[in-house]
């Protein structure tokens, strides 16, 4: 009897770094690659994955979006209740067409979005991260230092999990399913 009672009190355990207690997610208002408005506040009821990157990034960003694509595929029908949002921190080069083409390479349902630099700076600050333009002698032009993590917001609009770069697909899928069940 006691065992049954205790089993109902099992603490939630995630694979990523957990926000304990959960934090109300910052205000995130962006313009998507299709020209639509995106507001994180309107996504309550869905689990939202957020990443800050840029389309000229050849390594961290495509690796993360490829990871996301595997996560989405593994989620199956549950993926319809998950939003994958790539926030470009390089609005000077990432015009809507570039951004749309880029995120579509990985999955047509992925949302590419950005804002003006002041808005982006405010959003990043609220997530306690930052990005900066770095001059480079590369033929691709300047680079951008940016956060490598994925932020996860639950169905109530609370920040719950932070994944470091290189997350394991099965772990993320397991965590998202917990969040979708209301964990």
């Amino acid at each position: 009897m006691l065992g049954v009672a205790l089993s109902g009190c099992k603490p939630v355990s995630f694979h990523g770094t957990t926000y304990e207690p959960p934090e109300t997610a910052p205000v995130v208002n962006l313009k998507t690659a299709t020209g639509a408005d995106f507001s994180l506040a309107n996504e309550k009821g869905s689990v939202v994955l957020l990443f800050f990157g840029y389309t000229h990034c050849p390594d961290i960003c495509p690796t993360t979006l490829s990871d996301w694509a595997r996560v989405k595929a593994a989620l199956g029908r549950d993926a319809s209740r998950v939003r994958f949002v790539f926030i470009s921190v390089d609005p000077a080069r990432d015009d809507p067409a570039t951004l749309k083409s880029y995120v579509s390479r990985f999955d047509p349902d992925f949302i590419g979005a950005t804002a003006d630099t002041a808005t982006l700076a405010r959003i990043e600050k609220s997530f306690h991260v930052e990005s900066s333009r770095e001059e480079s002698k590369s033929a691709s032009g300047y680079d951008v230092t940016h956060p490598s993590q994925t932020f996860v917001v639950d169905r109530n609009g609370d920040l719950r999990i932070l994944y470091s770069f290189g997350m394991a697909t099965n772990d993320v899928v397991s965590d998202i399913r917990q969040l979708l069940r209301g964990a």
Partner: protein
Amino acid sequence: MKASCKPVARRYAFYAVMCTALGVLGAGCHREPKISATSFEVHDAWVRADPDSGATTAGYLRLVNGTPDSLVVSRFASDAARTVELHETSIDSAGEATMTMRDSLVIAPSHSVAMRPGAYHLMMIGTEHPLVPGTMVRITMHLSNGSIVSTSARVKS
């Protein structure tokens, strides 16, 4: 599959330079001190797919120096991209990712260097055509000793 090798250097004619490209992503992607090779070998070469011509993507491979001398790769090239540069991504304790262009890659004797996401990678700028998963592209390495080593890299998503 075998990677083609054109050893034009004088001294490395003694080392029977042999290059193989397995086309499979390898594990343990960092500097690995213990190797059994007795030549310069290229393994696990792959390039990330990109459906857009003119885009930027990344290539990864593992270089094994089984010779008794340090080897320096001074330039990379590919038939799939206008420019190929060596870059290194580093992630600090706060999770901030920074990319730094490197002029060359030095591989100590009996050591290997493995490129992988989040570390060394080849930045392939200005893709010549869409890179479709399952196809192969050529990556060429110019060594400071004059050798030119070429390998096939599988395109993967």
